[in-house]
């Protein structure tokens, strides 16, 4: 036991360990800062969109109360209220643990505009150059840099005896080699876990402030991930006859796993599910716009066949479409809506195919995630942090459902040629985000988690066999 205590004390005096610790701490501080910034940027974007939306509707409500027109048109027009002048927003609420791995929060637009005619996408204002080099958030530090630091710490803790020539003495010292390896790895492992957890807890405190129970899954996965890389470093360190060569192998393994493997898996996904060009969808939409009067007329006939009570009287149609002197020819709001919906209907299958192909690419990458511990960990982290593509798709589905609800509310008024009433402003549909249950999370996390366990088991077994080979006690 005294021997083991001495081992730990020796390690504590190792400057290399503290240099690596300092470097990792610095990276964590920077990564946490970026995560907090990314999270807040998303939250602010959502808050801005919601505030702007509320402002529009408040203006409309006050116009309705004072019975006056808005700047660009009447608040009474369901067509205007449902689209440009009013409209709605749906938003992808970052989960409580999003700061741990920004995932889709950093990639996708968290706000989706909902409109009767069109759902305009928020302009992508960020400089594409900034996305080129990739993120450097807490997720990056944990996924990319932790393996390198763990490898180097473990390699250094065990490889230095080879280099200084005391390894044969260690073997005959009577200390169990298993205990010795554990004693030497415990401190670096403890440091890495303490720093990672401390950074995670702080990042959550600075963002959502909600410590949900799956933070423990994150910590457990992080522990397994760190253990995998430490075991690999120890395995290399125990065979460090040629330190330079071992350092090369360490670097190659790290680089291959964190950089090359994800790139190759992505290339496989691209080959298996080649990205579909959206031009087909655009062309179909434009073709439909050109022939929309026919398609729109058909759609309108269908609507009135299904809802005969919505058909407005001829007098009402004439009254609503009375031209404004000097102004452009007034278009029947019903035609505008049906033409738009007919065009959208024509492009819908192509856009659906596009979405399916993107999903397929993600699924292929997900299925191959076990090939690299980093990829497995990335998928697992995103699931736990609530920032996965799957969760974003859940939001997309909700936004689609809300769009249908929104259209149903306003389209009926348009087809009836009915004016908005004051109480309609209050009664308008509102978006309520709801997200996947934890059961779904567990199901999604199972594959990457098993990939991570697999790698951990393989590397730990290799380390076990290497220790056994050397062990004299």
């Amino acid at each position, binding site marked *: 036991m005294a021997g083991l205590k001495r081992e730990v004390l020796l390690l504590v005096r190792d400057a290399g360990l503290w240099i690596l610790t300092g470097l990792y701490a610095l990276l964590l501080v920077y990564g946490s800062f970026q995560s907090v910034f990314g999270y807040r940027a998303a939250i602010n974007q959502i808050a801005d969109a919601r505030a702007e939306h509320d402002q529009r509707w408040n203006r409309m409500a006050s116009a309705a109360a004072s019975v006056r027109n808005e700047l660009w048109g009447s608040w009474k027009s369901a067509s205007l209220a449902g689209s440009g002048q009013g409209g709605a927003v749906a938003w992808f609420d970052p989960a409580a643990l999003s700061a741990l791995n920004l995932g889709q929060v950093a990639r996708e637009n968290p706000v989706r505009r909902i409109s009767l005619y069109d759902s305009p996408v928020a302009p992508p204002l960020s400089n594409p150059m900034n996305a080129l080099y990739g993120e450097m*958030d807490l997720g990056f530090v944990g996924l990319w840099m932790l393996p390198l630091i763990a490898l180097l710490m473990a390699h250094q803790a065990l490889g230095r005896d080879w280099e200084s020539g005391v390894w044969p003495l260690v073997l005959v010292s009577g200390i169990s080699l298993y205990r010795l390896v554990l004693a030497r790895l415990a401190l670096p492992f403890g440091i890495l876990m303490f720093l990672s957890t401390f950074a995670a807890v702080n990042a959550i405190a600075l963002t959502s402030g909600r410590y949900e129970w799956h933070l423990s899954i994150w910590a457990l996965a992080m522990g397994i991930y760190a253990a995998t890389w430490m075991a690999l470093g120890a395995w290399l360190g125990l065979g460090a006859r040629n330190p330079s060569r071992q350092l090369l192998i360490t670097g190659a393994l790290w680089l291959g796993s964190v950089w090359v493997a994800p790139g190759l898996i992505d290339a496989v996904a691209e080959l298996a599910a080649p990205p579909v060009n959206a031009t087909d969808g655009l062309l179909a939409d434009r073709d439909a716009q050109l022939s929309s009067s026919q398609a729109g007329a058909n759609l309108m006939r269908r609507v009135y066949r299904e809802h005969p009570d919505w058909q407005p009287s001829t007098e009402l149609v004439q009254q609503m479409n009375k031209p404004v002197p000097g102004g452009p020819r007034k278009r029947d709001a019903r035609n505008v809506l049906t033409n738009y919906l007919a065009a959208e209907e024509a492009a819908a299958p192509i856009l659906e195919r596009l979405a399916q192909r993107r999903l397929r690419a993600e699924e292929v990458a997900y299925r191959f995630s076990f090939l690299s511990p980093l990829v497995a960990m990335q998928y697992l982290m995103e699931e736990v942090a609530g920032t996965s593509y799957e969760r974003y798709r859940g939001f997309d589905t909700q936004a689609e459902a809300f769009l249908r609800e929104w259209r149903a509310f306003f389209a009926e008024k348009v087809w009836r040629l009915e004016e908005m009433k004051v109480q309609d402003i209050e009664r308008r549909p509102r978006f309520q985000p709801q997200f996947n249950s934890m059961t779904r999370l567990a199901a999604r996390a199972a594959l990457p988690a098993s990939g991570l366990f697999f790698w951990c088991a393989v590397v730990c077994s290799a380390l076990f066999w290497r220790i056994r080979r050397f062990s004299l006690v």
Partner: protein
Amino acid sequence: MFAMVRRIAGAELKQQYRDGTLKVLGVFVIGVLLFTIGARYTTFIKAAAEDRTAARRVREQWVNQGVKHPHSGAHFGTYVFRHSFATELLEPGVGSYSGKIFPLVTHARNFPIEVPIDRRSGLNRYGELSPGVVGLAVLSLAAILLGFGTIASERENGTIRLLLASSATPRAIIWGKCLGLGLAIGFLWIAIVGVEAVFVALAARMDPSDPAQTWLRFAGFEGVQLGYAVAWVVGVVALSAWIRHPRTVLAVALSIWVGNTILLPRAAATAIRTLISEPSAEQFTSAIKHDIAFRADGTEWVESWSKKLIADTLRQYGVERIEDLPVGYAGIMLKGSDAHYEEVFGIHFERLHRIHRRQEVWTLALSFLGPWVAARSLLEGFAGTDVTHLGTFSTAAERYRRQLVEATNDIAVRQGHGTGWELEVGKQFWESVPDFHYTPPPAWFVLGDHAAGMAILLAWILVAGLLMHRAERGLEWRV
């Protein structure tokens, strides 16, 4: 001296060849390149073909949009598709993160849509593994792996004494080692050039630009990779001469590599994005809407403007009522309001571009800490996928949008009467609006545009050379 340099270089090259690491690296880089370019190639060819067909179809749709008011045609608008360079296959650059299709309609300056990275898996969140990146990373890593021991190992083994005891001068040893290592890395570079040339030749048939320009761009691209490799070769040999133990050389060189290739670009980009941030989408669109609707003094723009326009127009044509105008008032009004819109768009987009330019300048300035950013931006420049190329296309698209809108407004003035809303035009007019044509900037444009990046890369080669020169003076006493 030259004979000695040649002999040492020959011996170094032979040793590198026998070591086997070079062959392993060669097989690795060719494998990874074939895989990454191969996957990209199919997508590139398909997308380029689809874009071509779509551009033709979009024009047909514009011409055959039927009989309607010219302003309705301007609302129907058109799409233009970003130019695809064959060299894009090697380095998609910022093109991956920016839209490919530009919707051009009246009253709105849209951002391009269809961002290629959105169609790919989330594994690219920490950076894309493009062939250009593979080339730069592998060449620099190869310089480290093959070169860390060039002099340090000779020193450790004691053979440097033998070399110095023979007629070899420290300068001849260092230059010989450097040349030998450079030739070994050169073979690797030739392998990379070979693989990339095959794919660029295949992709060139889908590139509408002049083939000579494509190959000039390719030459520039490969030249940057070579320059970057030279900086590393010289730098690693200098480190090997400076530092006593090969293991320390390797550790230092790998740390510099990780810092330069992985940490610095990310840290720089994310820090700059945080410090010089863009407005949020909401702020941007709200500000545009506000400036369109209101004057600086808070009064409504449309009300006072339309009153004045009506009065001015009636006075100009000497009539009492809009209905009596010999020209289409709708066209006059649209011209005026579009000019106002363009002015507002111009102010806000210029403000945004100024922020982007500041971000770019700072990112490039940080290249002084490591040459990766400068080399990568040069690769993007030659591949035609840097911010400037994107901006050039975007400017051309915007110019065309204004031309198209202007044409519809002009005819609404010329052929319209009175209010001008009754006017209808047909195929003849739609055909008379010229199609969009884009001539990409020539390859040498990159030299001027990326002069700073090139100077930084050259400065790094010079710094490494200076280090080597200093190391050669101290080689004897460090033995």
